[in-house]
Protein backbone atom coordinates (compact mmCIF):
# COMPACT_ATOMS: atom_id res chain seq x y z
CA UNK A 1 0.00 0.00 0.00
CA UNK A 2 1.42 3.38 -0.98
CA UNK A 3 1.49 6.15 1.57
CA UNK A 4 -0.35 9.30 0.52
CA UNK A 5 1.81 11.74 -1.43
CA UNK A 6 3.51 14.66 0.29
CA UNK A 7 2.45 17.04 -2.44
CA UNK A 8 -0.84 17.96 -4.11
CA UNK A 9 0.81 19.91 -6.92
CA UNK A 10 4.17 20.03 -8.69
CA UNK A 11 5.00 23.19 -10.62
CA UNK A 12 8.08 23.38 -12.82
CA UNK A 13 9.28 26.66 -14.41
CA UNK A 14 12.01 27.45 -16.90
CA UNK A 15 12.79 29.19 -20.15
CA UNK A 16 12.84 27.53 -23.56
CA UNK A 17 16.48 26.56 -22.97
CA UNK A 18 15.41 24.36 -20.08
CA UNK A 19 13.31 22.03 -22.24
CA UNK A 20 15.90 19.19 -22.32
CA UNK A 21 16.13 19.17 -18.49
CA UNK A 22 12.37 19.41 -18.31
CA UNK A 23 12.08 16.27 -20.43
CA UNK A 24 14.45 14.38 -18.09
CA UNK A 25 12.32 15.41 -15.11
CA UNK A 26 9.13 14.28 -16.83
CA UNK A 27 10.74 10.90 -17.49
CA UNK A 28 11.60 10.69 -13.79
CA UNK A 29 7.92 11.23 -13.01
CA UNK A 30 6.67 8.39 -15.23
CA UNK A 31 5.50 6.43 -12.18
CA UNK A 32 3.55 9.38 -10.76
CA UNK A 33 -0.21 8.85 -10.73
CA UNK A 34 -1.16 10.96 -7.76
CA UNK A 35 0.17 14.45 -8.25
CA UNK A 36 -0.74 16.86 -11.06
CA UNK A 37 2.29 18.45 -12.72
CA UNK A 38 2.19 21.90 -14.34
CA UNK A 39 4.98 23.17 -16.60
CA UNK A 40 5.44 26.90 -17.12
CA UNK A 41 7.92 27.42 -19.93
CA UNK A 42 8.71 30.75 -21.56
CA UNK A 43 7.77 30.61 -25.23
CA UNK A 44 6.96 32.67 -28.28
CA UNK A 45 3.48 34.01 -28.82
CA UNK A 46 1.46 34.30 -32.02
CA UNK A 47 3.38 31.48 -33.67
CA UNK A 48 2.07 27.97 -34.10
CA UNK A 49 3.64 25.87 -31.37
CA UNK A 50 3.72 22.09 -31.01
CA UNK A 51 5.53 22.11 -27.67
CA UNK A 52 2.84 19.96 -26.04
CA UNK A 53 3.25 17.31 -28.74
CA UNK A 54 7.04 17.53 -28.65
CA UNK A 55 7.11 17.04 -24.86
CA UNK A 56 4.61 14.17 -25.09
CA UNK A 57 6.76 12.42 -27.69
CA UNK A 58 10.03 12.95 -25.84
CA UNK A 59 8.84 12.23 -22.31
CA UNK A 60 6.92 9.13 -23.34
CA UNK A 61 4.11 7.40 -21.41
CA UNK A 62 1.94 10.41 -20.46
CA UNK A 63 0.09 12.85 -22.72
CA UNK A 64 0.97 16.47 -22.00
CA UNK A 65 -1.86 18.88 -22.65
CA UNK A 66 -2.47 22.62 -22.58
CA UNK A 67 -5.43 23.26 -20.28
CA UNK A 68 -8.45 25.25 -21.35
CA UNK A 69 -9.99 27.90 -19.13
CA UNK A 70 -11.80 26.45 -16.03
CA UNK A 71 -10.65 22.91 -16.78
CA UNK A 72 -10.52 20.73 -13.65
CA UNK A 73 -7.03 19.71 -12.52
CA UNK A 74 -6.66 15.91 -12.47
CA UNK A 75 -4.21 13.85 -10.37
CA UNK A 76 -1.26 12.41 -12.25
CA UNK A 77 -1.85 14.53 -15.37
CA UNK A 78 0.82 16.77 -16.86
CA UNK A 79 -0.17 20.21 -18.08
CA UNK A 80 1.72 22.82 -20.07
CA UNK A 81 0.86 26.52 -19.62
CA UNK A 82 -0.56 27.73 -22.96
CA UNK A 83 1.11 30.46 -25.03
CA UNK A 84 0.25 34.08 -24.40
CA UNK A 85 -1.78 33.60 -21.20
CA UNK A 86 -0.89 33.60 -17.53
CA UNK A 87 -1.98 30.33 -15.93
CA UNK A 88 -3.73 30.57 -12.55
CA UNK A 89 -5.04 28.04 -10.03
CA UNK A 90 -8.50 28.25 -8.47
CA UNK A 91 -9.29 27.13 -4.91
CA UNK A 92 -11.55 24.41 -6.34
CA UNK A 93 -8.48 23.03 -8.16
CA UNK A 94 -9.33 24.12 -11.66
CA UNK A 95 -7.34 26.35 -14.01
CA UNK A 96 -8.11 29.96 -14.91
CA UNK A 97 -6.40 31.84 -17.69
CA UNK A 98 -5.48 35.51 -17.47
CA UNK A 99 -4.50 37.84 -20.26
CA UNK A 100 -2.98 40.82 -18.49
CA UNK A 101 0.42 42.47 -18.77
CA UNK A 102 3.51 40.32 -19.21
CA UNK A 103 5.63 39.91 -16.06
CA UNK A 104 9.40 39.97 -16.67
CA UNK A 105 8.49 40.24 -20.37
CA UNK A 106 6.87 36.85 -20.00
CA UNK A 107 3.34 35.55 -20.49
CA UNK A 108 3.05 32.89 -19.21
CA UNK A 109 5.02 34.15 -16.22
CA UNK A 110 6.49 31.68 -13.75
CA UNK A 111 6.12 34.19 -10.87
CA UNK A 112 2.40 34.51 -11.56
CA UNK A 113 1.76 30.75 -11.69
CA UNK A 114 3.98 29.94 -8.68
CA UNK A 115 2.26 32.52 -6.48
CA UNK A 116 -1.18 31.40 -7.64
CA UNK A 117 -0.31 27.72 -6.98
CA UNK A 118 0.66 28.74 -3.44
CA UNK A 119 -2.60 30.61 -2.89
CA UNK A 120 -4.62 27.58 -4.01
CA UNK A 121 -2.54 24.67 -2.63
CA UNK A 122 -0.61 26.26 0.24
CA UNK A 123 2.43 24.33 1.47
CA UNK A 124 1.38 21.20 -0.42
CA UNK A 125 3.18 22.52 -3.51
CA UNK A 126 6.55 21.31 -4.77
CA UNK A 127 8.15 23.98 -6.98
CA UNK A 128 11.15 23.50 -9.24
CA UNK A 129 12.88 26.36 -11.04
CA UNK A 130 15.19 25.44 -13.92
CA UNK A 131 17.50 27.38 -16.16
CA UNK A 132 16.55 30.71 -17.71
CA UNK A 133 17.95 34.02 -18.83
CA UNK A 134 15.80 36.33 -16.70
CA UNK A 135 14.61 36.64 -13.10
CA UNK A 136 11.06 35.39 -13.63
CA UNK A 137 10.23 32.74 -11.03
CA UNK A 138 12.46 34.07 -8.23
CA UNK A 139 9.74 36.07 -6.49
CA UNK A 140 7.17 33.32 -6.92
CA UNK A 141 9.55 30.77 -5.48
CA UNK A 142 10.32 33.06 -2.55
CA UNK A 143 6.58 33.37 -1.82
CA UNK A 144 6.16 29.60 -1.92
CA UNK A 145 9.12 29.14 0.39
CA UNK A 146 7.67 31.70 2.82
CA UNK A 147 4.42 29.77 3.12
CA UNK A 148 6.30 26.54 3.77
CA UNK A 149 6.25 24.86 0.38
CA UNK A 150 9.25 22.81 -0.78
CA UNK A 151 11.33 24.66 -3.36
CA UNK A 152 14.14 23.38 -5.55
CA UNK A 153 16.32 25.32 -7.99
CA UNK A 154 18.62 23.88 -10.59
CA UNK A 155 22.27 24.37 -9.60
CA UNK A 156 23.29 27.53 -11.49
CA UNK A 157 26.68 25.94 -12.24
CA UNK A 158 24.92 23.21 -14.21
CA UNK A 159 22.29 25.48 -15.80
CA UNK A 160 22.58 26.61 -19.41
CA UNK A 161 21.30 30.06 -18.40
CA UNK A 162 22.00 30.66 -14.70
CA UNK A 163 20.18 34.02 -14.19
CA UNK A 164 16.86 32.41 -13.27
CA UNK A 165 18.13 30.00 -10.57
CA UNK A 166 20.72 32.53 -9.31
CA UNK A 167 18.03 35.21 -8.82
CA UNK A 168 15.94 32.79 -6.80
CA UNK A 169 18.90 31.84 -4.61
CA UNK A 170 19.77 35.50 -4.05
CA UNK A 171 16.21 36.26 -2.93
CA UNK A 172 15.56 33.25 -0.77
CA UNK A 173 18.06 31.24 1.25
CA UNK A 174 15.69 28.49 2.27
CA UNK A 175 15.64 26.55 -0.99
CA UNK A 176 17.38 23.40 -2.13
CA UNK A 177 19.93 23.58 -4.91
CA UNK A 178 20.22 20.42 -7.01
CA UNK A 179 21.91 19.26 -10.17
CA UNK A 180 19.84 17.63 -12.89
CA UNK A 181 20.85 14.15 -11.65
CA UNK A 182 19.84 15.03 -8.08
CA UNK A 183 16.48 16.35 -9.20
CA UNK A 184 15.85 13.17 -11.14
CA UNK A 185 16.59 10.99 -8.11
CA UNK A 186 14.42 13.21 -5.90
CA UNK A 187 11.45 12.91 -8.26
CA UNK A 188 11.87 9.15 -8.77
CA UNK A 189 11.59 8.69 -5.01
CA UNK A 190 8.32 10.62 -4.65
Amino acid at each position, binding site marked *: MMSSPRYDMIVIGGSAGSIPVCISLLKALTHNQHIPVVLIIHRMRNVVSQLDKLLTREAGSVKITEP*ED*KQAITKGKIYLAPQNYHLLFEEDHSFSLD*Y*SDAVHYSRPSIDVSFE*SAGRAYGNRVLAILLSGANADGAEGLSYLSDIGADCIVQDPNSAQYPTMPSSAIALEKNIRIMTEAEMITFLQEL
Partner: protein
Amino acid sequence: MNNVIGLNPKPQLSTQAFEQLLHLLHHVYGYDFSGYSKASLLRRIYKFMDVQGVTDGQQLIQLLAGDTSVFHSFLETITVNVTEMFRDPGFYKSIREKVLPVLATYPQINIWHAGCSTGEEVFSLCILLYEAGLLHRTRIYATDINASYLEKARTGVLPMTHMREYTLNYQQSGCTGDFSDYYTALYDHVLIHREIRERVVFLQHNLVTDRSFNEFQLILCRNVMIYFNKQLQNKVLKLFHESLSSLGFIGLGMKESLLFSEYRSKYSVVDGSVKIFRKKS
Protein backbone atom coordinates in the same frame (compact mmCIF):
# COMPACT_ATOMS: atom_id res chain seq x y z
CA MET B 1 3.91 57.55 1.91
CA ASN B 2 4.27 53.97 2.87
CA ASN B 3 7.90 53.17 2.19
CA VAL B 4 8.93 49.58 2.37
CA ILE B 5 12.47 48.63 1.54
CA GLY B 6 13.17 45.37 -0.25
CA LEU B 7 10.51 42.85 -1.10
CA ASN B 8 7.09 43.78 0.26
CA PRO B 9 5.27 41.08 2.18
CA LYS B 10 2.57 39.68 -0.09
CA PRO B 11 -0.83 41.17 0.70
CA GLN B 12 -3.38 38.73 2.01
CA LEU B 13 -7.16 38.84 2.03
CA SER B 14 -9.21 36.53 4.28
CA THR B 15 -12.32 34.94 2.81
CA GLN B 16 -14.39 37.17 5.08
CA ALA B 17 -12.63 40.36 3.94
CA PHE B 18 -13.01 39.26 0.32
CA GLU B 19 -16.77 38.85 0.81
CA GLN B 20 -16.98 42.26 2.53
CA LEU B 21 -15.11 43.83 -0.34
CA LEU B 22 -17.44 42.30 -2.96
CA HIS B 23 -20.41 43.55 -0.95
CA LEU B 24 -19.01 47.07 -0.82
CA LEU B 25 -18.28 47.15 -4.53
CA HIS B 26 -21.76 45.90 -5.35
CA HIS B 27 -23.85 47.93 -2.94
CA VAL B 28 -21.93 51.18 -2.80
CA TYR B 29 -20.55 51.37 -6.33
CA GLY B 30 -22.94 49.14 -8.30
CA TYR B 31 -20.32 46.72 -9.66
CA ASP B 32 -21.02 43.04 -9.07
CA PHE B 33 -17.82 40.99 -9.16
CA SER B 34 -19.27 37.95 -7.38
CA GLY B 35 -19.23 35.89 -10.59
CA TYR B 36 -15.62 36.65 -11.42
CA SER B 37 -12.90 34.02 -11.36
CA LYS B 38 -11.49 34.26 -7.85
CA ALA B 39 -7.87 33.51 -8.82
CA SER B 40 -7.52 36.33 -11.34
CA LEU B 41 -9.71 38.78 -9.38
CA LEU B 42 -7.57 38.23 -6.27
CA ARG B 43 -4.39 38.62 -8.30
CA ARG B 44 -5.57 42.03 -9.48
CA ILE B 45 -6.75 43.06 -6.01
CA TYR B 46 -3.32 42.10 -4.61
CA LYS B 47 -1.66 44.12 -7.35
CA PHE B 48 -3.75 47.14 -6.40
CA MET B 49 -2.96 46.64 -2.69
CA ASP B 50 0.74 46.41 -3.53
CA VAL B 51 0.65 49.70 -5.43
CA GLN B 52 -1.34 51.40 -2.66
CA GLY B 53 0.94 50.02 0.06
CA VAL B 54 -1.96 48.27 1.79
CA THR B 55 -1.43 44.80 3.25
CA ASP B 56 -4.71 43.76 4.83
CA GLY B 57 -8.35 43.62 3.86
CA GLN B 58 -9.75 46.08 6.40
CA GLN B 59 -7.34 48.79 5.28
CA LEU B 60 -8.35 48.19 1.67
CA ILE B 61 -12.05 48.36 2.48
CA GLN B 62 -11.61 51.60 4.44
CA LEU B 63 -9.64 53.12 1.60
CA LEU B 64 -12.28 52.20 -0.98
CA ALA B 65 -15.27 53.18 1.15
CA GLY B 66 -13.90 56.64 1.82
CA ASP B 67 -12.87 57.85 -1.60
CA THR B 68 -14.57 57.60 -4.99
CA SER B 69 -11.36 58.45 -6.84
CA VAL B 70 -9.63 55.49 -5.20
CA PHE B 71 -12.51 53.34 -6.37
CA HIS B 72 -12.00 54.50 -9.96
CA SER B 73 -8.35 53.64 -9.87
CA PHE B 74 -9.29 50.29 -8.32
CA LEU B 75 -11.76 49.65 -11.13
CA GLU B 76 -9.07 50.40 -13.71
CA THR B 77 -6.77 47.82 -12.12
CA ILE B 78 -9.49 45.19 -11.83
CA THR B 79 -10.81 45.51 -15.40
CA VAL B 80 -7.43 46.05 -17.05
CA ASN B 81 -6.86 44.02 -20.15
CA VAL B 82 -4.11 44.01 -22.70
CA THR B 83 -4.81 43.42 -26.36
CA GLU B 84 -3.03 43.07 -29.69
CA MET B 85 -3.87 43.48 -33.36
CA PHE B 86 -4.47 40.13 -35.07
CA ARG B 87 -3.85 38.25 -31.82
CA ASP B 88 -3.63 34.57 -32.83
CA PRO B 89 -3.28 34.99 -36.60
CA GLY B 90 -4.80 31.54 -37.18
CA PHE B 91 -8.06 32.79 -35.71
CA TYR B 92 -8.27 35.64 -38.21
CA LYS B 93 -7.30 33.34 -41.07
CA SER B 94 -10.19 31.09 -40.18
CA ILE B 95 -12.64 34.01 -39.87
CA ARG B 96 -11.48 35.14 -43.29
CA GLU B 97 -11.81 31.74 -44.94
CA LYS B 98 -14.76 30.16 -43.15
CA VAL B 99 -16.95 32.95 -41.80
CA LEU B 100 -16.71 35.95 -44.13
CA PRO B 101 -17.90 34.01 -47.23
CA VAL B 102 -21.12 33.21 -45.33
CA LEU B 103 -21.53 36.78 -44.01
CA ALA B 104 -21.13 37.99 -47.61
CA THR B 105 -24.54 36.49 -48.42
CA TYR B 106 -26.31 38.96 -46.08
CA PRO B 107 -27.31 42.39 -47.41
CA GLN B 108 -26.51 44.01 -44.05
CA ILE B 109 -24.06 42.51 -41.57
CA ASN B 110 -24.27 43.12 -37.82
CA ILE B 111 -21.30 42.22 -35.61
CA TRP B 112 -20.90 42.50 -31.85
CA HIS B 113 -17.37 42.64 -30.50
CA ALA B 114 -17.86 42.18 -26.76
CA GLY B 115 -15.01 43.21 -24.44
CA CYS B 116 -13.13 45.17 -27.10
CA SER B 117 -10.74 46.95 -24.70
CA THR B 118 -8.78 49.64 -26.60
CA GLY B 119 -9.94 48.42 -30.01
CA GLU B 120 -6.92 46.58 -31.49
CA GLU B 121 -8.86 43.44 -32.34
CA VAL B 122 -11.81 45.47 -33.65
CA PHE B 123 -9.58 47.28 -36.12
CA SER B 124 -8.11 43.91 -37.15
CA LEU B 125 -11.59 42.62 -37.95
CA CYS B 126 -12.38 45.83 -39.85
CA ILE B 127 -9.32 45.27 -42.04
CA LEU B 128 -10.45 41.73 -42.84
CA LEU B 129 -13.92 43.00 -43.76
CA TYR B 130 -12.43 45.81 -45.82
CA GLU B 131 -10.24 43.41 -47.79
CA ALA B 132 -13.24 41.13 -48.37
CA GLY B 133 -15.24 44.11 -49.71
CA LEU B 134 -17.78 43.79 -46.89
CA LEU B 135 -16.94 46.66 -44.55
CA HIS B 136 -19.25 49.22 -46.19
CA ARG B 137 -22.34 47.10 -45.42
CA THR B 138 -21.26 46.06 -41.93
CA ARG B 139 -22.08 47.68 -38.60
CA ILE B 140 -19.78 46.69 -35.73
CA TYR B 141 -20.89 47.29 -32.15
CA ALA B 142 -17.75 47.22 -30.02
CA THR B 143 -18.45 47.20 -26.29
CA ASP B 144 -16.47 47.20 -23.07
CA ILE B 145 -17.15 47.73 -19.37
CA ASN B 146 -14.28 50.23 -19.10
CA ALA B 147 -15.23 53.71 -20.36
CA SER B 148 -11.69 55.03 -20.52
CA TYR B 149 -10.66 52.21 -22.87
CA LEU B 150 -13.55 53.04 -25.18
CA GLU B 151 -12.48 56.67 -25.14
CA LYS B 152 -9.03 55.57 -26.29
CA ALA B 153 -10.43 53.19 -28.91
CA ARG B 154 -12.56 55.95 -30.45
CA THR B 155 -9.44 57.97 -31.26
CA GLY B 156 -8.00 55.20 -33.47
CA VAL B 157 -4.55 56.02 -32.13
CA LEU B 158 -2.22 53.18 -31.13
CA PRO B 159 1.34 53.20 -29.83
CA MET B 160 3.98 52.53 -32.49
CA THR B 161 5.83 50.07 -30.22
CA HIS B 162 4.10 46.91 -31.39
CA MET B 163 3.50 47.69 -35.05
CA ARG B 164 6.28 45.41 -36.23
CA GLU B 165 4.77 42.46 -34.41
CA TYR B 166 1.28 43.41 -35.67
CA THR B 167 2.62 43.47 -39.23
CA LEU B 168 3.87 39.89 -38.83
CA ASN B 169 0.52 38.88 -37.33
CA TYR B 170 -1.28 40.57 -40.22
CA GLN B 171 0.77 38.66 -42.77
CA GLN B 172 0.21 35.34 -40.99
CA SER B 173 -3.54 36.00 -40.98
CA GLY B 174 -3.56 35.40 -44.73
CA CYS B 175 -4.29 39.04 -45.50
CA THR B 176 -3.34 40.14 -48.96
CA GLY B 177 -2.68 43.86 -48.73
CA ASP B 178 0.04 46.01 -47.28
CA PHE B 179 -0.60 46.55 -43.56
CA SER B 180 0.97 50.01 -43.62
CA ASP B 181 -1.77 51.19 -46.03
CA TYR B 182 -4.21 51.18 -43.12
CA TYR B 183 -2.51 53.65 -40.82
CA THR B 184 -0.47 56.83 -40.75
CA ALA B 185 2.56 57.03 -38.48
CA LEU B 186 2.74 60.07 -36.20
CA TYR B 187 6.01 60.14 -34.25
CA ASP B 188 5.66 57.31 -31.71
CA HIS B 189 2.02 56.59 -32.52
CA VAL B 190 -0.06 55.48 -35.47
CA LEU B 191 -3.52 56.59 -36.51
CA ILE B 192 -5.74 53.89 -38.00
CA HIS B 193 -7.41 55.41 -41.07
CA ARG B 194 -10.94 56.68 -40.66
CA GLU B 195 -12.31 54.60 -43.54
CA ILE B 196 -11.29 51.47 -41.59
CA ARG B 197 -12.94 52.66 -38.35
CA GLU B 198 -16.05 54.45 -39.57
CA ARG B 199 -18.38 51.42 -39.40
CA VAL B 200 -17.64 50.87 -35.69
CA VAL B 201 -19.76 52.15 -32.81
CA PHE B 202 -18.01 51.99 -29.44
CA LEU B 203 -20.48 51.57 -26.56
CA GLN B 204 -20.16 50.95 -22.83
CA HIS B 205 -21.78 47.64 -21.91
CA ASN B 206 -21.46 45.44 -18.85
CA LEU B 207 -21.83 41.74 -19.75
CA VAL B 208 -22.80 40.95 -16.16
CA THR B 209 -25.75 43.29 -15.84
CA ASP B 210 -26.71 44.69 -19.25
CA ARG B 211 -28.99 43.03 -21.76
CA SER B 212 -28.86 42.31 -25.45
CA PHE B 213 -29.36 45.29 -27.73
CA ASN B 214 -29.59 43.85 -31.25
CA GLU B 215 -29.33 40.70 -33.34
CA PHE B 216 -25.97 39.75 -34.85
CA GLN B 217 -24.60 37.36 -37.45
CA LEU B 218 -21.21 37.28 -35.70
CA ILE B 219 -20.22 37.80 -32.07
CA LEU B 220 -16.58 37.96 -31.00
CA CYS B 221 -15.80 37.72 -27.32
CA ARG B 222 -12.17 36.73 -26.94
CA ASN B 223 -10.43 36.32 -23.61
CA VAL B 224 -13.11 38.13 -21.64
CA MET B 225 -15.03 35.21 -20.15
CA ILE B 226 -11.77 33.77 -18.75
CA TYR B 227 -12.26 36.31 -15.93
CA PHE B 228 -15.65 34.81 -15.03
CA ASN B 229 -16.54 31.68 -13.11
CA LYS B 230 -18.51 28.91 -14.79
CA GLN B 231 -21.92 30.14 -13.67
CA LEU B 232 -21.32 33.63 -14.97
CA GLN B 233 -19.84 32.22 -18.18
CA ASN B 234 -23.09 30.34 -18.74
CA LYS B 235 -25.11 33.48 -18.05
CA VAL B 236 -23.09 35.46 -20.60
CA LEU B 237 -23.32 32.63 -23.14
CA LYS B 238 -27.10 32.81 -22.72
CA LEU B 239 -26.96 36.52 -23.55
CA PHE B 240 -24.89 35.76 -26.65
CA HIS B 241 -27.20 32.91 -27.64
CA GLU B 242 -30.20 35.23 -27.51
CA SER B 243 -28.31 37.89 -29.47
CA LEU B 244 -27.14 35.63 -32.31
CA SER B 245 -29.27 35.24 -35.38
CA SER B 246 -30.10 31.75 -36.57
CA LEU B 247 -26.91 30.16 -38.02
CA GLY B 248 -24.87 33.02 -36.57
CA PHE B 249 -21.19 32.60 -35.60
CA ILE B 250 -19.38 33.10 -32.32
CA GLY B 251 -15.58 33.37 -31.94
CA LEU B 252 -13.81 32.89 -28.59
CA GLY B 253 -10.22 32.91 -27.30
CA MET B 254 -7.90 30.02 -28.20
CA LYS B 255 -8.32 28.32 -24.82
CA GLU B 256 -12.01 29.02 -24.27
CA SER B 257 -14.71 26.64 -25.30
CA LEU B 258 -18.45 26.25 -25.59
CA LEU B 259 -17.98 22.53 -25.30
CA PHE B 260 -17.92 22.57 -21.50
CA SER B 261 -20.92 24.87 -21.23
CA GLU B 262 -24.67 24.30 -21.11
CA TYR B 263 -24.82 25.44 -24.72
CA ARG B 264 -22.66 22.78 -26.34
CA SER B 265 -25.55 20.99 -28.04
CA LYS B 266 -26.86 24.20 -29.62
CA TYR B 267 -23.71 24.90 -31.64
CA SER B 268 -21.68 23.15 -34.31
CA VAL B 269 -17.90 23.47 -34.48
CA VAL B 270 -16.67 25.56 -37.41
CA ASP B 271 -13.00 25.45 -36.44
CA GLY B 272 -12.16 23.74 -33.16
CA SER B 273 -8.49 24.71 -33.16
CA VAL B 274 -9.29 28.44 -33.04
CA LYS B 275 -12.67 28.20 -31.25
CA ILE B 276 -15.19 29.36 -33.86
CA PHE B 277 -18.70 27.95 -33.41
CA ARG B 278 -22.01 28.30 -35.25
CA LYS B 279 -25.51 28.38 -33.82
CA LYS B 280 -27.44 25.40 -35.15
CA SER B 281 -30.77 27.10 -35.85
